[in-house]
């Protein structure tokens, strides 16, 4: 299955949940927030959230800024 993650294409075996994607992204302990197709998916629902072919996923973190 083909996703777009932070603007870049990514191939994944279906079925994959958002939690699985998160693991695969090796974000470490980093606090992140996920948006799938423009909608925020709360941390509590990552396990339940099944990704679909063509999904646009955004992963954001807090970084230095003023």
């Amino acid at each position: 299955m083909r996703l777009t993650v932070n603007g870049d294409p990514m191939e994944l075996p279906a079925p994959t949940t958002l939690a699985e994607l998160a693991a695969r992204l090796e974000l470490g302990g980093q606090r992140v927030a996920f948006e799938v197709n423009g909608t925020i998916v709360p941390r509590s629902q990552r396990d339940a959230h099944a990704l679909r072919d063509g999904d646009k996923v955004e992963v954001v973190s807090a970084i230095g800024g003023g």
Partner: protein
Amino acid sequence: MSDNMKGVPRADKPLVIAGKTYRSRLLTGTGKYASHEETRLATEAAGAEIVTVAIRRSNIGQDKGQPNLLDVLPPSKYTILPNTAGCYTADDAVRTCRLARELLDGATLVKLEVLGDPKTLFPDVEQTLVATRTLVAEGFEVMVYTNDDPIIAKRLEELGVVAVMPLAAPIGSGLGIRNSYNILTIVENAKVPVLVDAGVGTASDAAVAMELGCDGVLMNTAIAAAGDPVRMARAMRLAVEAGREAWLAGRMPRRRYASASSPNEGLSF
């Protein structure tokens, strides 16, 4: 000394933002530092309790090992203030705030800035007002970056922001307080905390902001772009305290002419 030649002291009151009381009146940004370590040392030297952070796409697969800003400045120790820097529309700013809330386990305190122009980084006050209405309705506690127009500042307060943050000068310009009359008017009219955000260049600028009666100052470049950021952070902490103390103490009135400090009696020996 006759009273009209003395200053008038003011009563102190704590800085309370969104129901939480802070000892430090210096808020700092976390951008433009050489390293996370420099960020940490400067933040500690500044004595900041509230630090603002930007929300950006995570770097996928890069610098896995690299420490995360929130490990360096843990939410357990600091009030993390996510900002909407880089947003030019109300929609982008609101979206960024929602992501920040998810990222920070539901924390609702945000620094709203909707920019109007990349050259001046002045706020777009129309879009800022739109975003403020939405965010307040969604339960966010909004600290809002604005220009130094007292009417806009009052309007934002009426919309329910928890702090008004007028610019002293353009973000990162270091030009200091360009229009002290406007800042003073904003302070006099406000019932919520007023913090100068942006434009401070050196310690005396921060002191001036506090002497105008501001409740605090938020800065980033003035510290990060100093020759020695950690030392400048300390300077800023001292300057904010100095300005606050001076405002509370009540400065002497200005006089056009001189006034001797030593008595004239007993002079003709």
